[in-house]
């Protein structure tokens, strides 16, 4: 009986411990990208600032929790009624302006401290000046895929964002301008920064300066329709050489290979070209992802599956296999047509 009401306190405390374990394991051992995108394993200045702030807030709230939960625990133990035959009422106390004043002022002071800290951090992250060396990328959210425009480089990448490594000696932050083509989305790669929404008719900004190379995963953070769950986001942080090579490849027009002319013909005579662009061909649709460099990407369908020829064929045959409800229709192609188109697409490096 005694331990009863304590169970809830314990459970809560346990969860805090668990949290602390996660926090410690990620913070201590993480150097670079993880497959679990923990906010406690920051790899970029905004995410690190938030991480430090969160530790501070956790410490304060943890302190409050220990104090108040301790009080509750004490009260529960100390003032339980002992025995049913107790026939007296305890002393009746109506209140005390003194005590109440004290426990009003203390929270006010805590709020002042928390607010000052938070405000400084908001300004530091949100109003950070943009250095000359920064790379500009315009992110456009579409229903269930991402478009990344590099206006100065003339590149239109899809679903997989490539950014250069940044270091304190050679700062190369990436400044993102975020827009949406249809509904609201949200750009969230926890290890790199907090999220910000992509809203039609409303421009938002975000910056990152990733400090360890590798692949950082994230996903859309604002419910955007049927396949919100599979609107995955991959950010490749490249070393300067890798990044230069990638840029060079992306700037090329589409590979033209006569061996897959049938596939190309199918592509251009079916409705594919209404939605997709392949530079240098008749396909100039903007509704779906640009396919000029399809094979340079690791995944298909915004991360829903890996980019292998089999998956590509299945995805073209019936998109619902990987992403039920995606806006790409099943084109009802014959097996032969499928093979041809897949072969054609596989040349688009």
């Amino acid at each position: 009986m005694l331990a009863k009401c304590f169970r809830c306190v314990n459970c809560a405390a346990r969860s805090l411990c668990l949290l602390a374990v996660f926090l410690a394991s990620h913070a201590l051992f993480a150097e670079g990208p993880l497959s679990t995108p923990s906010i406690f394993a920051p790899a970029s200045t905004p995410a690190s600032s938030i991480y430090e702030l969160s530790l501070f807030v956790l410490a304060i709230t943890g302190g409050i929790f220990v104090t108040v939960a301790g009080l509750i625990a004490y009260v529960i133990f100390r003032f339980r009624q002992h025995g049913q035959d107790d026939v007296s009422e305890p002393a009746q106390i109506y209140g005390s302006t003194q005590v109440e004043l004290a426990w009003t002022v203390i929270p006010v002071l805590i709020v002042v401290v928390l607010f000052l800290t938070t405000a400084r951090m908001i300004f530091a992250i949100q109003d950070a000046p943009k250095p000359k060396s920064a790379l500009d990328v315009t992110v456009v959210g579409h229903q269930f895929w991402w478009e990344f425009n590099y206006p100065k480089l003339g590149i239109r990448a899809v679903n997989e964002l490539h950014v250069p490594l940044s270091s304190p000696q050679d700062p190369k932050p990436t400044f993102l301008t975020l827009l949406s083509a249809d509904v609201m989305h949200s750009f969230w790669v926890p290890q790199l920064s907090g999220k910000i929404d992509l809203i039609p008719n409303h421009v938002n900004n975000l910056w990152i300066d990733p400090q360890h190379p590798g692949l950082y995963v994230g996903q859309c953070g604002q419910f955007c329709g049927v396949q919100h769950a599979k609107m995955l986001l991959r950010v490749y942080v490249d070393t300067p050489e890798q990044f230069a090579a990638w840029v060079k490849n992306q700037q090329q027009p589409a590979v033209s290979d006569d061996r897959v002319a049938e596939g190309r013909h199918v592509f251009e005579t079916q409705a594919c070209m209404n939605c997709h662009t392949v530079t240098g061909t008749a396909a100039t649709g903007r509704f779906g992802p640009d396919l000029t460099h399809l094979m340079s990407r690791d995944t298909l369908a915004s991360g829903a599956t890996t980019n292998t020829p089999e998956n590509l064929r299945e995805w073209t045959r019936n998109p619902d296999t990987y992403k039920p409800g995606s806006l790409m229709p099943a084109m009802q192609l014959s097996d032969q047509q499928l093979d041809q188109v897949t072969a054609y697409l596989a040349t688009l490096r």
Partner: protein
Amino acid sequence: METHEQSNSSPHGETIHLPAPTAWPIVMAFGVTLIFAGFVTNMIVSILGAVFFVTSAVGWFRQVLPHEAHEDLPVEAHDITIASTRTHVTRIEISEEHRAHLPVETYPILSGIKGGIAGGIAMIFPALLYGILSHHSIWYPVNLLGGAGVANWSNPTTQDIAAFHIQGLIVATIIHIATSVLVGLLYGAMLPMLPRHPIVLGGIIAPLLWTGLLHSTLGIINPVLDDRIAWGWFVVSQVAFGMVAGFVVARQGKIRTGQSMPFVLRMGIEASGLHSGEGEDRH
């Protein structure tokens, strides 16, 4: 224990007026819902709903005008005994008014605010003295404090900080006044709870604790200040605050708490249903 017999309080045959049950509300609610449902189904549904609505409105109207329909319920006599098995009420030892608000006597709330203001003013002098002695500028400590609120201030130089900034001054003033008053208030509120020697406790030990707390957290709250703060001077100005605030608070006499008056009277609010004579009736 005694139990009253209530043979004649509500004799059988006495009745009580209550509003009569009526079906019009449910009909009207159904009508309204149908009107809205029609938008997504068929116009006919809306029309049907409108018919329901109008019918029920008329029916409802006729029921309340000119006289509200009512039913007379017979009163059933039944005894209700109000008793508690707990026959004894514990009393607080300290006074006759055993259910008083605690404590009975207290420093007025204003004294805390006054103490905070006085302490806040006292605190300025060591701080300015520090500015003049170490950097020959009274703006140095001001800007250090205000830096927490100056948005675009990252990595300022010492000259920067020693110069005059209106933004820094404003932010620093706000922070200083707010915290001084709040701490003073807290101090005044907690004085009666502290054991003896309020000035010693409040003036020296509390500032030391406060400094310790700040020392460990300042790096997050205000890194500029943290980098450049001179902790010795900081403690001196904290103690100055505490001593002056404590002195001012302690000098104010204690007053009886306004507990014998209702809250609304104490607040000076008049509300309907409140008896202004109540305060005097209580003895």
